[in-house]
């Protein structure tokens, strides 16, 4: 019952991040919005695993967190001119 309210609030948050990703004026704005959206999606995966009663979603959330951390650091190094 109350998990549906949580899902609706998280959905609105992800939509706001996507809006900033579409109309951000510079490239680091879009990268910041992507970083925030991926952290929110990690929390959303754990919440979905609780709603569906499947504990495989925790493993998916862990791997997603590791991959998005590596991706954000690589995007930052690319913007800086390191690679």
């Amino acid at each position, binding site marked *: 019952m*109350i998990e549906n309210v949580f899902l609706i609030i998280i959905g609105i948050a*992800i939509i*706001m991040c996507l809006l900033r990703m579409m109309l951000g004026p510079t490239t680091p704005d879009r990268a910041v919005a992507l970083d*925030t959206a991926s*952290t929110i999606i990690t929390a959303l995966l754990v919440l979905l695993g609780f709603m569906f009663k499947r504990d495989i979603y925790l493993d998916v959330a862990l791997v997603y967190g590791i991959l998005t951390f590596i991706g954000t650091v690589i995007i930052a190094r690319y913007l800086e001119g390191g690679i």
Partner: protein
Amino acid sequence: MWVGFIVTGVGVIFLFLGALGILRLPDVYNRLQAGTKCTTLGAFFTIVGVGIIEPGWFWKALLIAMFILISSPISSHALGRASCKIGIPLCKQSVVDKSKEFDECGRKEK
């Protein structure tokens, strides 16, 4: 049981406030501030709250939460350093900018 729901609700509210700051603040540095702090605390509370509701999942959920707690400030620091280095300007209401007074290692330049 209800403690877990309360902790998860607080975390979801923090996630919503972080995304609102991403949408409404004027500058890339302010957006980094709102996005990183609120989202790290919100994701930590949400995941630990799910671990409290389902006690069999607690240690794996705590592992994910600790990983987010370590990795999110590192990535946002890298993004802020990159956007300062390529010269993104501050917003008009900014008062002070001390990034020109220090060199790359953090020492004072004479």
